[in-house]
């Protein structure tokens, strides 16, 4: 009895050792040489695997960086300039700093501004709703309010405001990966530069209908009147298809257009609250630019 156990142990030990040697030799022989920089870059990445860079995950991004040898097309929006600096140092090159982006919801069709015209009781998904019809309000361009963007966000930066029925972006949590913009079937979410201390001016509307039609559907719609474009000294505003668009690269944050817009479709966020008298807008905004 004892003999059987001893023999079993001996045979298995010998067999195990022999096979380990075989495995070792095979692993040596067929070893795949991999650039060690891929691992190094991957370690510096945020590791969210969100796909914001356009690759399947952080590893794929690292592989692409090493393969290309430069960072012209590769940028991790989540890690931002900090991470890219580290990636560049691994590759031994200089990183070009990019302005950080933030998701901006370009619709102000809150329950108060945009009344419901029918009752949707289908699946609570913007994509499904968009395949069925234009939505339960009179505006076929605006937010559908089912929160596909919220579920697409891997960083918990989006939430639905129960009062307005619109998504709200937490700009501290938003990494600018663009997952929400891709999830939105109406394309109302845009990635825009965060701006100096978060200050930015944008048109919070996507309605391309003619003014009267747009206004009827939503009291906060851009009616394409072009007043903002006329008042803008930087020529940053273009009106096309009855809709104004502010080019963030040209905008100097003077806020003249905000005061000019008859429907309040142009939003200015994160500007310091002016206490004494907000009347001479042009004067104050110059200060803003200097501060920024």
């Amino acid at each position, binding site marked *: 009895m004892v003999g059987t156990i001893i023999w079993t142990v001996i045979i298995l030990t010998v067999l195990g050792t022999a096979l380990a040697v075989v495995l070792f030799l095979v692993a040596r022989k067929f070893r795949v040489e991999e650039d060690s920089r891929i691992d190094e870059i991957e370690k510096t990445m945020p590791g969210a695997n969100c796909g914001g860079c356009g690759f399947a995950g952080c590893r794929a991004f690292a592989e692409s960086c090493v393969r290309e040898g430069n960072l012209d097309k590769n940028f991790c929006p989540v890690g931002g300039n900090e991470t890219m600096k580290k990636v560049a140092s691994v590759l031994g090159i200089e990183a070009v700093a990019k302005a950080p982006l933030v998701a901006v919801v370009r619709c102000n069709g809150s329950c108060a501004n945009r009344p419901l*015209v*029918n009752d949707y*009781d*289908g*699946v609570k*998904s913007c*994509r*499904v709703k968009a*395949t*069925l*019809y*234009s*939505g*339960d309000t*009179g505006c*076929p361009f605006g937010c559908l309010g089912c929160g596909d963007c919220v579920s697409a966000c891997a960083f918990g930066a989006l939430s639905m405001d129960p009062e307005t029925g619109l998504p709200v972006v937490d700009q501290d949590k938003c990494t600018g990966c663009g997952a929400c913009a891709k999830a939105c079937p109406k394309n109302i979410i845009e990635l825009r530069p965060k701006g100096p201390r978060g200050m930015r001016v944008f048109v919070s509307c996507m309605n391309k*209908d003619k003014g009267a039609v747009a206004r009827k559907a939503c009291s906060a719609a851009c009616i394409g009147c072009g007043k903002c474009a006329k008042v803008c000294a930087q020529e940053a505003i273009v009106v096309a298809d009855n809709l104004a668009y502010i080019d963030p690269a040209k905008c100097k944050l003077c806020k003249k257009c905000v005061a000019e817009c008859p429907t309040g479709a142009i939003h200015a966020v994160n500007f310091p609250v002016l206490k004494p008298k907000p009347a001479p807008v042009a004067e104050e905004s110059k200060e803003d630019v200097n501060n920024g």
Partner: protein
Amino acid sequence: MANRTFSIGGSHTADKKLSKDCAIEVLPMPSTVYVSMNQHLGAPAKPLVAAGDTVKVGQVIGEPGGFISAFVHSPASGTVKSVAPRKDLAGNSTLCVEIAVEGDEWVEGVDLSDTLVKAVPEDRAFILDRIRLNGVVGLGGATFPAHVKLNPAPDKKAECLILNGSECEPYLTSDYRMMLEHPSEIIVGAAIMRRALGGCRCVIGIEDNKPEAVASMTKALDELKASGLEGYEDISILPLMKKYPQGGEKQLINAVMGREVKSLGLPIDVGAVVQNVMTAFATYEAVQKNKPLVSNVLTVTGDCLPIEKQHNYKFRIGMPLSYIAEYAGGVPEEAAKIVSGGPMMGKAIANLDAPTVKGSSSLLYLTEDQTRRGKESDCIRCGRCTEACPMGLEPFLLVKLARNAMMDELEANAVQDCIECGCCLYSCPAYIPLLDIIRIGKGDVMKIIKSRPRK
């Protein structure tokens, strides 16, 4: 012996042909019509008129915008008020020609008499030209341009023309009424289509819940055969079992010919061409009378309507749906949802001011009880959706894959073959919105398939 039907799946939906005894009435013209440039499958038509132009009934106002596209004709005589985007019944913008109606003056060369022209033209090119120039599209629902289907590629041979008279959707009775009131015209239309396809056999499939239609069509066919004219040999009428979706193209081919169209294939691959009876009627008018497709028949029905308020109307395209609803006695108070098309595949109307189009087939009023969705619960793998699917798919699996965006698996499980008939949704005891989710997955997969380089 039970009548023939397709071999797998299907739902035994309620019949509800409430308006079947209401004779077709002609709607008077409203003061304004709005003619959509996007009334057919394929590229939208390009408008040929501008504000201020005067038009006559039957005048071309839109030319095809691509190979798969169709001519659009004016349904009214009067003055063009504007050419501008308007909201369709789903609330999306489409380009419409607005015409202020003045009288009812037709263009020259259209035969407006009721006499039946039985002699089928010999020339195939002449037939196809008339069908194309008169803007005939498939009126079974998909509005696919008829001349494209009737002109298969030279290497494909049509063996059988199947005329779809099954009208398998509950409630709808417009095809049925046409088969009762204009059977001879439909059969002449079938004979014309047969000639265009090179003289293949023709089977007219009618569901057996419409024995009067079968009798009326058989009588008309016998009379035409007895007339001794050429072109009516090899046409037969086949009663089919009542089962939804009997009128689906692939289901009808399976029921009539016993063949199956392979995945992503076309009916012509198995030698079949399927057309609706209404399309046959439109073909008859286009070829024999040179009359463009400017009118169709629509059913106004619903359980909440008393029988005297149910109607089958012959309408001109471009009439606003709200005008038709008003003329029929207004929208009933109990109506919670108005559907255009049948209850299974039809679309809920978000905008009743939308104009009618060539393919409009109903104004169906559904009550709150009929439309509310049950509360969704978990899938218990009962398999009812799989049993019901007429394409042999597994809807519960497709939903799971679509929810997780697993595109390869979706394609391997043939989501692209889904005909969106709604049988799975109808059968699900857990009220899972199967079709809504599958449709999303199908759209994504089709996009991937189309973006692949062709071999």
